[in-house]
């Protein structure tokens, strides 16, 4: 039994939590989310390079919340999601345990402060490769960028898998569902798709923790991560602000500095 399985078994057996949300083996060698509710099933848990989903998305699902206190197997982005959700008043202190799997020992984070401390030791910046890709993309001409996104968005089905997979898209009424006025066209035509994707990116600005689940969820492979990383980068360089590093921080866009840059304003 792996350390993770052992820890999960212990938490369930001691009733410290009612459910362990982790990864299990799924179809085709992939990992999938599992909800372990009995200590005897702890052996179903796995953790390896295939375990990518940001399981914090389930913290917002009413059916999962009903199961009781949860221990969540986390990746770094998951921890940042938890803090961001806490900062947005969505999860309460002491409502969950975070299980950080590692080779030697399972680290158990029980408080937001502990998660904050853990996250502080991580590099929350975009990776070098991510920065390079952004750089490469930004260097393209305006028309090239426009054509690229028009082609990408023309394939968008508006299946909302990006939204469903995103733990920060927890709104019970999405802007796209507001029809008085109809902010965003419901049909998945080109204009509607552009507006939908711009809206979603803007609504994640200063909030997205770059977990990448939206891109992974997109059935037609639109590189949504580029949009999010662009905004992560802009919010950091512009406002020195990062999402998901504190359970109490204000959102970059609901705060300001009197000396924010304004070279584009006449």
């Amino acid at each position, binding site marked *: 039994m792996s350390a993770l399985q052992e820890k999960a078994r212990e938490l369930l057996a001691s009733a410290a939590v009612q459910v362990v949300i982790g990864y299990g083996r799924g179809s085709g060698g992939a990992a999938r989310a599992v909800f372990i509710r009995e200590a005897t099933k702890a052996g179903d848990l796995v953790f390896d390079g295939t375990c990518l989903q940001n399981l914090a998305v389930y913290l917002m699902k009413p059916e999962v919340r009903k199961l009781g206190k949860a221990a969540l197997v986390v990746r770094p982005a998951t921890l940042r999601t938890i803090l961001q959700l806490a900062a947005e008043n969505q999860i309460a202190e002491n409502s969950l345990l975070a299980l950080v799997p590692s080779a030697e020992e399972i680290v158990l984070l029980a408080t937001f402060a502990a998660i904050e401390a853990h996250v502080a030791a991580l590099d929350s910046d975009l990776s070098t490769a991510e920065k390079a890709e952004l750089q490469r993309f930004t260097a393209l001409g305006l028309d090239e960028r426009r054509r690229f996104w028009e082609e990408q968005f023309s394939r968008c089905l508006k299946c909302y898998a990006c939204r469903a997979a995103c733990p920060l898209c927890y709104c*019970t*009424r999405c*802007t796209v569902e507001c029809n008085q006025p109809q902010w965003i066209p419901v049909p998945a035509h080109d204009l509607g798709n552009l507006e939908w994707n711009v809206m979603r990116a803007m609504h994640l600005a200063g909030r997205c923790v770059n977990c990448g689940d939206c891109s992974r969820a997109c059935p037609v492979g639109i590189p949504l991560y580029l949009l999010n990383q662009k905004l992560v980068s802009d919010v950091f360089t512009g406002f020195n602000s990062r999402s998901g590093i504190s359970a109490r921080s204000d959102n970059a866009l609901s705060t300001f500095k009197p000396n924010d840059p304004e070279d584009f304003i006449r």
Partner: protein
Amino acid sequence: MARIGVFICHCGENISATVDVMKVAAEAAKIPGVAHSVEYKYMCSDPGQQLVKNAIREKGLTGVVVAACSPRMHEPTFRRACAEAGLNPFLCEMANIREHCSWVHEKGDATTDKAIDIVRTLVAKVKKNKALQPIKVPVTKVAMVIGGGIAGIQASLDIANAGHQVILVEKEPSIGGHMSQLSETFPTLDCSQCILTPRMVEVAQHLNITLFSYAELESLDGFIGNFKARIRKKARSLDEKLCTGCGLCTQKCPSRRIPSEFDAGLGLRPAIYVPFPQAVPNKPVIDREHCTYYRTGKCRLCEKVCPTQAIRFDQQDEIVEADVGAVVLATGFDIKHGDFFPEYGYGKYRDVIDGLQFERLASASGPTLGEIRRPSDGRVPETVVFVACAGSRDPAKGIEYCSKICCMYTAKHAMLYKHKVHHGKPYVFYMDIRAGGKMYEEFVRRAMEEDGVQYVRGRVSRIFERGGKLVVKGVDTLLAARPLEIEADLVVLATAGIAQPGAEELAQKLHVSYDAHKFYAEAHPKLRPVETNTAGIFLAGACQAPKDIPESVAQASGAAAKVAALFSQSELVREPLIAVVDRQAPPVYSSCVGCFLCQSACPYQAIEKEEIRGRDGQLLKTVAKVNPGLCQGCGTCVAFCRTKSIDIQGFSHEQVHAEVLALLNRGERDA
């Protein structure tokens, strides 16, 4: 069923000279939902307004668009006319075809077309307007003034004299504040206490003022007109009702070598003490930190000598709750102390003192009874160097601002010194002299010219001791940057005025904003200088920024006037152009998801958390709620809300969205 009336004004020829008003009226009539469209020479005239009123009554209009001048000009006029005809005034909009069209464009089709566009836009808007009712908030006509310095005293007296109850909260054992410590005041050199103490007594005796001295604000909830304050009355260790203020206890107290706060550390006081003889209330407190009994469990001498048995060693802090309708913040300022100026030896050399200490030296009631003597050896200093801008206007030290009062009090100090030590040599190091104010420049000039104070323009770089003298090294920038060394007996630093140490904490309790230096922020730097961004909380005095006495008093009276105006009605009536959060029937209750991004964005702390509970009391969700008493209607929250759950009346999502679409659909009209 929209039945919109459009009323197009010629404004004499101001509009009709460049806009074909007949065509505008004809085109407006074709807009779906427009039931009535007319033009008239002067719509704002009585007959013009009558046209509007008659049409409302006769045609049963559900909305009115007056295409005329700017709404900033006549919106109230036409809204009133609508109301008189029985139409909710908020169902009237103005299409600005004068300032924004006829006056700024040449005569021609393009101008007329634009006028039609504007009318169509406003028709689209008004179709989405909702009948709104003014917001009424009850007002508790009791003011709380926090801080009993001159600003707080003035505000309290003005409000109390206007006939309203005032609760004055002072954290020190006596009111009076910094002004009570001052010797003389510029520019008249009248005695500070002589003008202040009568006011203090008036406060104590005023029937409308309840004074809580030695007390601090614990918390403040609620909103304009309806605050709930909790005030902590710190334990004086004394029954105030029994105490007569005879002073026996303070005379007999054996712990007598405690630095006096009132004397800025230059004098001493006992453990049971009244800060100064004219204190209000004239009741002592026991400083439990220094009291022998509290430290050792023995003594109780004061208890023994007290003729009225007023001493209460076991007294606890007491929390007093009060309903108040308005708050005036008058918590004053502090000055920079300690190791902020290591290069000046402040805190290291006893004869490098700050301005407040000099005030005590110069004060007839001070530790030297008004004689200027060095703290170190009590000698009368022959040479005194006054250093202005000690810390102020020094971005490197983090204080970019000017402390404003130092130029004047430094001139005063130098004069006072010269008046008391006729042979003394006062020097003043300064950067610029800021003497804007009635009789201020004259005052400074007197110091220079009549009293022979030596003004040296330049910064002091270092102060160090050499052979019993304080060597002040500086540069005289007016004399070709000549380095300068003055051997002084006393150095007085005009240290920067800063916010009170607890300013930030108090601001957070009150939910008022403050600047980078923790000075409280006014609602508008020009037009609302005595209001905070939190409705019902006003500012007076140096808690907003360093100020001198007349300014503090003026602002206090201003704040008092604001309070009195607020208290002039039993209900606060406001335009309903405020934000509202979606509420709907169960099971949804509200589309708000409670992320509270709006809360941090709101400049007015108008967004509260509301817990929605089921019949069994179970918490269903926590959602945002706009306090109509606080919201000013900027709509910043609206643009933040991802679920579009918050909307602003008068500029709602539906209204502005309809405007954008209507403005741009000219192409369809032409097609």
